[in-house]
């Protein structure tokens, strides 16, 4: 038997997924639980003022410690700073499959925050989706204190 004859065969993998349950820490817990009350909390660095949403306990810009007292409530309104129209998505088997209906994914800078949130943009006429337009949160009808409480961002109603 020579080396050339040694071929590789593909292995059948078992349908198995490793599960994870990440603990959130206090600030993120407050953020997620407050979504039930339709509130969005951000963390404002006490030293440099950079405002993170979702909140975090350490400033990436100046390394200051951020505590619960530094949390500020945001209005849920913001500006669309960038976006893309998605024609595909990753399916459960990690393959790209075509979406029946393309969706918009936007980078939203909430008023009072410096971070961008990457969320779906919907219920806006596709022709009106442009950089710089104002958007606001569309909540689920029944909020439960989970990240899915934010359905998507939609047109600004003032």
């Amino acid at each position, binding site marked *: 038997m020579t080396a050339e004859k*040694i*071929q*590789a065969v593909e292995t059948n993998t078992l349908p198995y997924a490793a599960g*994870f349950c*990440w603990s*959130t820490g206090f600030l*993120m817990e407050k953020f997620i639980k407050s979504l039930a009350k339709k509130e969005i909390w951000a963390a404002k660095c006490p030293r440099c003022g*950079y405002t*993170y949403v*979702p909140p975090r306990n350490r400033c*990436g*810009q100046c390394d200051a410690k951020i505590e619960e007292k530094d949390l500020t409530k945001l209005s849920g309104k913001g500006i669309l*700073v*960038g*976006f*893309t*129209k*998605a*024609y*595909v998505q*990753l399916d459960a088997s*990690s*393959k*790209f499959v075509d979406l029946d209906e393309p969706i918009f*994914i*936007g*980078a939203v800078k909430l008023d009072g925050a*410096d*971070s*961008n*949130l*990457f*969320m*779906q943009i919907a219920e806006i006429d596709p022709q009106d989706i442009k*950089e710089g337009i104002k958007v606001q949160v569309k909540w689920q009808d029944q909020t439960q204190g989970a*990240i*899915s409480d934010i359905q998507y961002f939609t047109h600004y109603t003032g």
Partner: protein
Amino acid sequence: MQRRVAIVGYAQSEYQFNVPRTREDQVFDVVKAALRHAGILREEVDSVVTASSDFLDGRTISNVFLSMAVGAYQKDESKVEEDGTGALLYGLMRILAGTHDVVTIEAHTLASTINPHQILFYSLDPLFDRQVGLMNDIAAAAIQARMYMKKYSVPEEAVAMVSVKNLANAALNPLTHRKMPDLTVEEVLNSKLYYEPIRELMIPPITDGVCALILASEEKAREITDRPVWIEGVGTYQDSYLRDRDLTRFESLGKAAAKAYEMAGIKDPYREINVFEVSEKFAHEELMIYEALGLAREGHGQSLIEKGLTNREGEIPVNPSGGALSADPICATGLTRVIEAARQIRGDAGGCQIPYVERALAHGQFGICAQKNTVFILGGDQ
């Protein structure tokens, strides 16, 4: 640098999709070929540094069954989990420290094992972005491309021209994966849309690949070869996480390049570097890379491609090997760029050869929207 360090040998696998051979087999062949290329035996190697990723390989401790294949049996071995340029940097540090003289650097990813874009989904913030479940590296790159193109009025055609240039260059490189010598801008712009404005031909193909190189201290390099390729400068930096970055520029790449230029004593990269091998994981990134490397002012990367300056025949050829757009074996992509740059300096680049190369730049990146960048400056003797 405390010591001079040179590349004295290298080898690459053929970059393809779904190569019907095992990981161990491919790695063994390439490492063996690199040692042969340097003309040394495994016994002369002091240390081995590899680059691979547990998530990309689908097993914890991805290198655990490869120590024999990379020739690390009873050698000082380590592994970085990022682009191969990270392994090269670590190998370089080991030689600079004076504790080792000859180091094998190996990098691989068999991307056909799993859709690598899924892995970049797994790298998102698990507490928020992964819960939202919308993003992956292509979506992020698309948002970035749009923001960049909007900010500087870059036409889609300029982005497509990057694909046209690199995939045509790839046709001259027998090893690479996606070769399209007669590709047109229209064809790129008519290819399948993934995330607007990013289309199929602006994304690298899914590639299996292995590459390896041998690094040696000055004394050893002189013994081993007459044509050492010296490492003259290196810089590496990381950016903030996706949410807190200015996506329209590669800040960390700019810093990495500045650092590498400073070490190599380069004032004007445009004139002092003859060829550039960069890791553009999406076509628009190459334009942003031009700017970060100081080849064009911010927002003016497009003019280089439009004027043909970065073509093979241009003043500053970029990716004559085909670049990452032609083959992207994730962890090996950056190291491939280093090897291609070294080939240019030694005059061994075959069909891809650019005349009169004395100095070359190689760039590797890792993460979403090139969050981490490493730049190497290579030079020949003199």
